[in-house]
């Protein structure tokens, strides 16, 4: 049992320690903090620093490699992130699940700087949920020194390229490309069409070296792989390493993907998050980010003349923005994918 005086001394010391500890923490960084969760290598790091110094804030920046990885984190509704970059097809489901905060256009005058194609996109026609950030498409990357006549998806079934071709390791893309080759819609939910696509994929498998995503880049550059289903962005990066590489926007049509900056509903930094989105819309910032990420910006400013990243008008017209697949179709497609992989 402590006597009164001792007790007071102790408790005052404790108060002092607690207060001391708190003040050190506060002194370390008093700036407000914004938590940004983006795809890896998808921003110019100098722009993060610029935002921090200009606004006197701190950014905690994290990266992810797939929409599913990001979704798994933010589904809980208390992930600790404020701004995320879902692909356009994920915005609808995320909004339906109450994960996204409605944008306040009054705080985003920079929206006027968006390319006209992204002012009223099909997936979010009034830009309620997200600001289009960067986009790219899927097509055929090939080595023009050793392969000629690649214009369509059907090139990826060519016997003379047996063992030197790859497809993306992605069920939606592989089944979608098979559907396009058969003249059917990329996002089909019809079981007969999907069965036909599966048969086509299994037939194609014997010609393929592998199902590879970004890993194929080095093998295209080295010449191991001669033709690959690949994203325009990754191809543009590969072309920097091997000038003989080309990119075909297939004649049967091709999917386009737009990653958009969205604010999570859980965010308590609604204003600061808007400031960051507005910052990304600034012409010089958008240009710097597109240059560093080697991809196509959704802004008018900062676009380059590279036809791999920016297909000309009549080519672009063949592209489409795939919507989210309904869960039942998703499940059916996954079974087909497992059958393809096991074949």
């Amino acid at each position, binding site marked *: 049992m402590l006597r009164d005086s001792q007790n007071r001394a102790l408790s005052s010391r404790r108060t002092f320690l607690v207060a001391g500890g708190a003040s050190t923490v506060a002194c370390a960084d008093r700036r407000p903090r914004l938590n940004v969760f983006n795809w890896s290598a998808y921003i110019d790091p100098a722009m993060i620093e610029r935002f921090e110094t200009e606004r006197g804030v701190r950014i905690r920046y994290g990266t992810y490699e797939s929409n599913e*990885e990001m979704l798994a984190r933010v589904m809980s509704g208390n992930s600790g992130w404020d701004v995320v970059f879902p692909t356009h097809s994920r915005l609808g489901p995320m909004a339906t699940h109450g994960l996204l905060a409605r944008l306040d256009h009054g705080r985003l005058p920079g929206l006027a700087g968006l390319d006209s194609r992204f002012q009223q996109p099909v997936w979010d026609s009034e830009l309620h949920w997200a600001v289009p950030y960067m986009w790219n498409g899927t097509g055929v990357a090939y080595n023009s020194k050793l392969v000629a006549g690649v214009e369509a998806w059907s090139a990826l079934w060519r016997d003379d390229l047996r063992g030197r071709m790859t497809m993306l390791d992605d069920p939606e893309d592989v089944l979608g490309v098979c559907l396009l080759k058969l003249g059917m819609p990329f996002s089909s939910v019809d079981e007969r069409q999907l069965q036909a696509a599966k048969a086509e994929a299994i037939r194609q498998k014997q010609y393929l070296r*592998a199902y590879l995503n970004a890993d194929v880049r080095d093998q295209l550059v080295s010449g191991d792989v001669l033709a690959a289903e690949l994203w325009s962005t990754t191809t543009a990066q590969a072309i920097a390493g091997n000038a003989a590489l080309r990119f075909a926007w297939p004649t049967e049509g091709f999917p386009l993907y737009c990653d958009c900056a969205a604010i999570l509903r859980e965010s308590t930094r609604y204003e600061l998050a808007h400031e960051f989105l507005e910052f990304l819309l600034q012409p010089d910032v958008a240009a710097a980010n597109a240059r560093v990420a080697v991809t196509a910006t959704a802004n008018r400013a900062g676009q380059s003349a590279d036809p791999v990243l920016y297909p000309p008008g009549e080519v672009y017209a063949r592209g489409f923005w795939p919507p989210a697949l309904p869960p039942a179709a*998703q499940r059916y497609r996954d079974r087909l994918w*497992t059958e393809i992989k096991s074949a």
Partner: protein
Amino acid sequence: MKLRFWSLLPARLTGALLLGIPLAVIIAYSLLTRGDYGGVEQPWTLDNWARLADPLYLAIVWRSVWIAGVATLLCAAAGFPVALFIVRSGRWRNVWLQLVLLPFWTSFLIRTYAWIFILRDTGLVNTALTSLGLIHKPLPLLYNDGAVLAGLVYNYLPFFVLPLYATLEKLDTALPEAAADLGATPWRTLRRVTIPLSLPGIIAGSVLVFVPCLGAYLTPDLLGGGKTVMIGNLVQNQFTSARDWPFGSAVSMAVLMLSALSLAAFLRHRTARELL
């Protein structure tokens, strides 16, 4: 009695927290319904377990058992001479042992990627063979079962060598000597004396190789080029593109049970149990 209870409490708590709770979560997930965009939802169901009986998935399980089994056999074939060599290398013993452990200083992912650079068309092996004039067209070494097995054997070989080394080291050298004195050839001594006596080490090593190979997903993914599926890839796919967490959980539990069963089968050998 009381002391025993309290002193064991931390161990029990750690076990419950790190093993029991995650396992309970997986079991619970496997009995729920998939959320449309990931996660799990009510109601409770046995559907996910029923789906396991589908021949498509059984074939994947069988394939995984087969590949893990072949990898274990190859590890045994490669690991036994290595362990024997190290035991008999006198004062160099520790150097060799360190060398066996050396790869663990780099990441598993990097070691697996390194195999891509060894096996691909413009890789080490094909470039060497071509420049020696032995082949004119690169051999298809990457993205097949052979590449997957090479990766598995390479990565898990130390797990076979180490327990085997521990057994061989304790082996009474007088026994092989006696066999030799009694006229047995070196081959016969190995077959009739050394191998039977080192069985505990062989069994322990096999468990340590077979179980992780059964659940491997990175190696088949990177070196198999996504052209084949093992159980690990099936699970991974359920948690990513398929967004079917309950089925993924059911498959993981099935793998876990399969591993536990094979472990139990191996552990019926008493001395192996001591070694593990």
